[in-house]
């Protein structure tokens, strides 16, 4: 069908007409090949403006429409809809940006008009070759995979499950709860972390719409938005979870003690263990690395098994439920889901790399998480704040910004340290009323709701605030009163004095950093990481939970350091996005995709390796590549790369682009 093109030049009030001679441009346009009509009008985006187009389509039988006005990023959807209303395929519409790219950036009226003409002629030449495209829709599988069982994952999972959609909650450790389960109190409200978290944890454990997969790792993801397939490795627990009653007898029997991860190495756990009293599921697992029987089996020896058999001569029985099962092996489970929520959280910055802070060299230099455990009633000291020698500290220094705001480690601010540091001084004050507490800070960032008030409260409680970053923690005493103490060196910048502050205990308020294997996860679900290593959201302001991969959402600290309120809010947001997809039931997939002409494809696979979305697969029989249009996002990188020109990028075909180049150069 011979193209019949209509061209419409918008005045945009004086925004365009003030600089560009719109009539002249319309005049010029009407002279171009295949242009049936060219008009200019005050506001093309207004209803009358749109009707102008609609009527011409009907009356003049236009089959191509060009509007020269603002940026397509602004009104392309508007005019596409108008065309569709008049029965014209949306992809037979093209826009020339003569406002943002022309009238607004050029002072010289004549030059502006010339440029406008060039842009219009480009659009006209381009549209000559444009073809109708269909946006396709695919059904959305309503099952959801949530990766990570911390507060973010828990919140998202519950929101979705409560609206009666199946959730697979995958957690690496043997219990959900994440970091929040380790905390003592939460700022600024000071309510006990466990008290507010455990109800949610148990709900997750019992929820009929949540399949909890603890001690499990995501292995592989394939498919595309609405229709993912995921492989999950459920690591062998060597304890039959159906039978285990969580009585804990096995822990008492087990002779092997190792440092407890949950207690940050301050306490011990057994080789067979339940990580903490309120764990969900509250069932034992055997850590194969430390279990002497499982290690023995590798050398064909059969040792220990006390947890299973008990100690006969003493008449102590082993696991009465008969749950111990050394024959277990890892299981790979495959699930079908429509969307994925990544909530893999953070890891604490390891301060041992900052040698001058003495972590690992001096006892009683603790990380933030260690202090949480020390102060936690379920912790190794049952909540008593004690030095390694069992004494009660008379003075404690809390050092801010450890690993954060520091080019040698992490440039970003970890956002939570100021507040949890303040919380610590309250917890210490509570338990050791006459302790000297020092806060060494650079800036106090108490930005959240009720945070500044919390800071004020702490001031009343009598905390020594020292404005200065600690330079060093040393055991080298220079005066008698420093003997046997940890001396914190800093400049009190408000009085410009060097200070040596002798204390019994030093707490390093360590920053939050991306998990060591974040890159691995990013690769699995094909999302990207920002420079700091946290997962990259689609838009930092307007789309903070979506990612570059449709159907994959991020929430919580894996996307960037944040406190619990923000995490919960973001988790609910992610859930809302997922539920929106589910309730719509279908997703539109990009019509602008690449197609490979099998006849031309030489099977070199260059495109396959270039595609960031794994949308291109190689057909071993035909020895050619083909594009999965549901995965393709139409970036066109493969089109440009194909040495045999076998790939066409829809709506950005070489022909169309060359015509456009021709146009701008008239």
């Amino acid at each position, binding site marked *: 069908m011979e193209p019949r093109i209509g061209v419409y030049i918008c005045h945009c009030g004086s925004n365009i007409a003030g600089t560009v001679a719109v009539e002249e441009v319309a005049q010029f346009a009407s002279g171009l090949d295949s242009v049936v009509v060219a008009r200019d009008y005050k506001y093309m985006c207004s209803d009358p403006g749109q009707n102008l187009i609609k009527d011409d389509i009907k009356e003049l039988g236009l089959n191509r429409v060009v509007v020269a006005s603002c940026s397509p990023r602004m009104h392309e959807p508007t005019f596409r809809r108008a065309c569709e209303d008049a029965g014209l395929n949306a992809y037979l519409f093209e826009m020339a940006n003569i406002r943002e790219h022309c009238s607004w950036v050029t002072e010289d009226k004549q030059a502006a008009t010339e440029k406008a003409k060039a842009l219009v002629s480009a659009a006209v030449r381009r549209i000559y070759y444009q073809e109708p495209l269909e946006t396709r829709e695919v059904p959305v599988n309503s099952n959801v995979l949530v990766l990570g069982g911390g507060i973010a994952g828990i919140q998202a999972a519950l929101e979705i499950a409560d609206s009666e959609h199946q959730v697979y909650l995958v957690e690496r450790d043997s219990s959900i709860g994440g970091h929040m389960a380790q905390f003592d109190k939460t700022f600024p409200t000071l309510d006990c972390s466990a008290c507010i978290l455990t109800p949610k944890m148990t709900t997750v454990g019992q929820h009929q719409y949540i399949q909890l997969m603890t001690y499990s790792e995501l292995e592989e993801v394939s498919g595309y938005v609405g229709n993912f397939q995921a492989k999950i490795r459920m690591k062998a627990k060597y304890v039959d979870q159906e039978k285990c009653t969580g009585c804990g007898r096995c822990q008492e029997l087990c002779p092997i003690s190792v440092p407890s991860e949950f207690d940050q190495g301050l306490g011990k756990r057994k080789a067979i263990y339940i990580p903490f009293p309120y764990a969900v599921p509250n069932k034992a697992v055997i850590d194969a690395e430390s279990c002497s029987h499982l290690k023995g089996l590798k050398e064909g020896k059969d040792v220990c098994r006390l947890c299973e058999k008990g100690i006969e001569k003493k008449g102590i029985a082993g696991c009465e439920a008969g749950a111990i099962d050394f024959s277990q092996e890892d299981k790979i489970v495959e699930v079908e889901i429509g969307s994925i929520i990544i909530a893999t959280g953070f890891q604490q910055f390891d301060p041992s790399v900052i040698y001058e802070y003495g972590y690992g060299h001096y006892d009683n230099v603790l990380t933030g998480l260690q202090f949480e455990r020390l102060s936690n009633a379920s912790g190794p000291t049952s909540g008593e704040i004690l030095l390694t020698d069992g004494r009660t500290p008379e003075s404690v220094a809390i050092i801010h910004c450890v690993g954060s705001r520091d080019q040698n480690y992490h440039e970003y601010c970890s956002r939570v340290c100021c507040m949890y540091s303040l919380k610590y001084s309250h917890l210490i004050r509570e338990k050791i009323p006459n302790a000297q507490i020092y806060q060494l800070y650079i800036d106090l960032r108490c930005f959240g709701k009720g945070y500044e008030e919390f800071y004020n409260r702490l001031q009343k409680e009598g905390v020594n605030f020292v404005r*200065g970053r600690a*330079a*060093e923690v040393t055991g080298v005493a220079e005066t008698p009163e420093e003997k046997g103490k940890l001396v914190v060196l800093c400049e009190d910048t408000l009085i410009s004095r*060097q*200070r040596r502050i002798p204390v019994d205990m030093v707490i390093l308020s360590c920053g939050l950093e991306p998990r060591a294997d974040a890159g691995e996860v990013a690769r699995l679900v094909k999302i990207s990481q920002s420079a700091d290593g946290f997962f990259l959201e689609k838009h930092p302001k307007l789309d903070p939970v979506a990612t570059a991969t449709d159907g994959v959402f991020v929430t919580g600290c894996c996307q960037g350091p944040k406190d619990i309120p923000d995490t919960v809010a973001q988790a609910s947001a992610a859930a809302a996005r997922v539920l929106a997809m589910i309730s719509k039931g279908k997703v539109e997939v990009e019509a602008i995709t690449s197609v490979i002409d099998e006849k031309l494809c030489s099977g070199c696979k260059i495109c396959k390796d270039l595609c960031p979305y794994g949308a291109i697969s190689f057909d071993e029989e035909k020895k050619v590549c083909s594009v999965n249009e549901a995965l393709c996002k139409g970036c066109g990188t493969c089109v440009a790369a194909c040495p045999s020109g076998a790939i066409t990028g829809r709506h950005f075909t070489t022909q169309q682009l060359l015509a456009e180049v021709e146009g701008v150069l008239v």
Partner: protein
Amino acid sequence: MKTKVLNGKNLAQEISALPGGEGINLCIQCGTCSASCPNANRMEHAPRELIALARAGMYDEILSSNSMWFCLSCYLCTVRCPRGIKITDMMHALDRVATRRQLSNARTQTPTMYKSFSDFVYSIGSIPEVGFMTWFYLLSNPLRALKMMPVALSLLKHGRLPVKARRLKPEAERQRRAILDKAEELEGIL
């Protein structure tokens, strides 16, 4: 060596334009440098304060102080600075500005010491310790020379005070001077 007095360029710009001086714009005033400095408590203004003063435009305050002359070049501040500021280099940049502006500082002998050291580097390309020391004490305070006698003698006794200076071969010396003269001619990086 001839010193040049500079056009009245504002010091903050002047310093930030110097190798090592860029840092003053980046500083977050955390005090790590001052706290790490083995000598800060002897300085009239510790490094962090110097940067603050420079930002506040209090140049005379800075240049007339003993601070930069008390830098020991131990680089502890530099490796610890969370903003990657080369504070040691900045201190020496300040030394240079002060020198060029011919602001001698009465309260420390270091400028004189640096100057006399440099004179030897410049003139013969090596440091004959005896010569240098005597030269310095003559320039600063001959009486201190007497106080130093015990140390000097013990060094001498252990054959550690060679009296003869090391000299380069004539053609090498000519080359060295040619380079330095050119440098002199090109001077003005401040």
